[in-house]
């Protein structure tokens, strides 16, 4: 048995060793591929519709003429967005908040998840409770606001990255990941070698956690990228505003607010742009994140543990 296994390991590390597909396997693959393909189609079609709508004339969009290709091609929706000079500032600010914020997030999350993943840690349960409790109970908006004010944070760069430094939810996910994928034998080996928990963290846990790091990075980065409410209430200077604030401003500026009595003329023009904007805004604010995704994707698609176990 051993010999055959070694043989196949030699040949088959990169590619799955084709022993020959049985009938049931072929059936399995076909069914799965079909189902996944169908679902992907159901997802893609409306997405194409949104992209097409963002490039179409607003009356065509309203009339429902747009299906999968732009009708009366126009860049008005995008112009309405990029015409605003603040967009550049918004993009830069958001990128900085996202990069710095995500780094801080990952750091704090791992530094918290690692000790809690060790079941031998005394009071582990108490600490878990300490953190989990905050997922449910919070003072509410006004006490949090007063707290941030007392700390002198409003209208600074740090207010965008420190109060949200860790999401307990993500921390729990990270903890679970470390617990279930880093075998205890590795720790034992490390402790025997004479290094402590600290060294173990940096030399073993981190390198093996690429997948969860990628997931955390993705989660947190998306959170920062879309963040809006924190900036709304804590930031005052326009040069610190993130992208989403400016995008919403554009949307609301062009929205027809019936409580503000305006003549039908003005309403009509605004409505046209407002409809287009709904779509072009999604594209503008999502494309950068989509571009980021493939870089992280490769970390959690397949095999990170190969070669770490000996014998």
């Amino acid at each position, binding site marked *: 048995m051993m010999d055959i296994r070694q043989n196949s390991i030699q040949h088959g590390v990169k590619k799955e060793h084709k022993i020959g597909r049985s009938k049931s396997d072929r059936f399995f693959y076909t069914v*799965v*591929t079909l189902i*996944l393909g169908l679902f992907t189609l159901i997802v893609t079609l409306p997405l194409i519709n949104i992209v097409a709508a963002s490039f179409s004339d607003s009356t065509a969009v309203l009339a429902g003429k747009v299906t999968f290709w732009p009708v009366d091609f126009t860049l008005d929706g995008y112009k309405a967005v990029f015409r605003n000079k603040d967009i550049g500032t918004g993009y830069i600010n958001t990128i900085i908040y996202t990069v710095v914020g995500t780094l801080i997030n990952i750091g704090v999350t791992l530094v918290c998840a690692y000790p809690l993943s060790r079941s031998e840690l005394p009071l582990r349960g108490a600490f878990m409770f300490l953190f989990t409790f905050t997922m449910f109970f919070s003072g509410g908006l006004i006490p949090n606001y007063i707290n941030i004010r007392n700390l002198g944070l409003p209208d600074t760069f740090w207010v965008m990255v420190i109060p949200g430094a860790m999401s307990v939810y993500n921390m729990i996910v990270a903890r679970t990941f470390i617990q279930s994928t880093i075998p205890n034998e590795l720790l034992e080996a490390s402790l025997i070698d004479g290094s402590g928990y600290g060294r173990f963290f940096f030399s073993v846990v981190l390198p093996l956690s690429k997948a969860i790091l990628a997931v955390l990075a993705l989660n947190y980065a998306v959170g920062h990228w879309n963040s809006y409410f924190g900036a709304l209430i804590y930031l005052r200077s326009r040069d610190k505003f993130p992208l989403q604030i400016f995008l919403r401003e554009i949307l609301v500026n062009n929205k027809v607010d019936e409580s503000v009595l305006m003549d039908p003329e003005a309403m009509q023009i605004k409505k046209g742009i407002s409809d287009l904007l709904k779509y072009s805004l999604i594209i503008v604010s999502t494309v950068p994140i989509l571009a980021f995704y493939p870089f992280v994707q490769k970390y959690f698609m397949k095999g990170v543990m190969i070669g770490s176990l000996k014998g």
Partner: protein
Amino acid sequence: MSQIHFPTEERTNRADRYAKYFCRMKRCGVLYLFLLLPVVWVIIFNYIPMTGVQIAFRKFSFVGGIWGSPWVGLAQFKKFFGSYQLSRILPNTILLSFYGLLAGFPLPVLFALCLNALEVRWFKRSVQTITYIPHFISMVVLVGMLFRIFNSRTGLFASIYMLIMDVQPRDLLANANTFRHMYVWSGVWQNLGWSSIIYVAALSGVSMELHEAAQIDGASRFQRVLHIDLPTIIPTVTIMLILSAGGIMNVGFEKTYLMQNDLNLVTSEVISTYVFKIGISGTTVSDYSYSTAIGLFNSVVNMLMLAFVNAIAHKVSEVSLW
């Protein structure tokens, strides 16, 4: 080939005991050092403002602020439980949530397992990349799309239906019974890809050697998924389930509000939309005490639910939150 042996990854007792011994030797102090930063952070930013939750037991007014407003005890809670529509909004909220959980939780797991099982790389990567995009669509656009597609005269759904059945379909948007289905399944469409990412990541840690061994033993792909892949991610799945249970009372306001209309209000009125409507027709700028009290109630239920599922998980498997 009657029995295929699937070796599982388990923490061996020996390693466990060694670690415990090590720790008792006071060598795990460094772990506490690691925890210092998060603990300080959570105290400053979470526990200190948490004292403000007492506003649920007061009647908030701007004159007194949080600490100076008059104390009213449980009055806000009594007000909530005496709500005229409580018998409508409470079940609606819970049912909608449960349904969402039932539909929305297993599917990403299955999706991840299936995706992982495939071999053609370009297909896998593109499926994954495309299916997570709907997560970024704003609620307004999503509901707008839903309205467009399911309009019983001009929508895509109507066109297909008429092709087959030759008559116009019932108005799915005007029906109290179909509201829940529309709400939940549109949510599945939007979030399936994104939610499956964590499981795909967990599956990346599956040992290749186990698969090799099973293959040699003659296991089919399906059997391999069932007996190797699935057990590997069970800890992750369990924790995600526990965490989801902790969100049982959180039915999103925006989507529900957008999808409501007079004809489906019987099932579409939930706690968050009801409180919002009262707030608009209400008195002070926002009845802060009242909304905090309701939030507190929601949180307590959430927490109990989480503790309950956690306890079950603890009994059934080794995996639990605490």
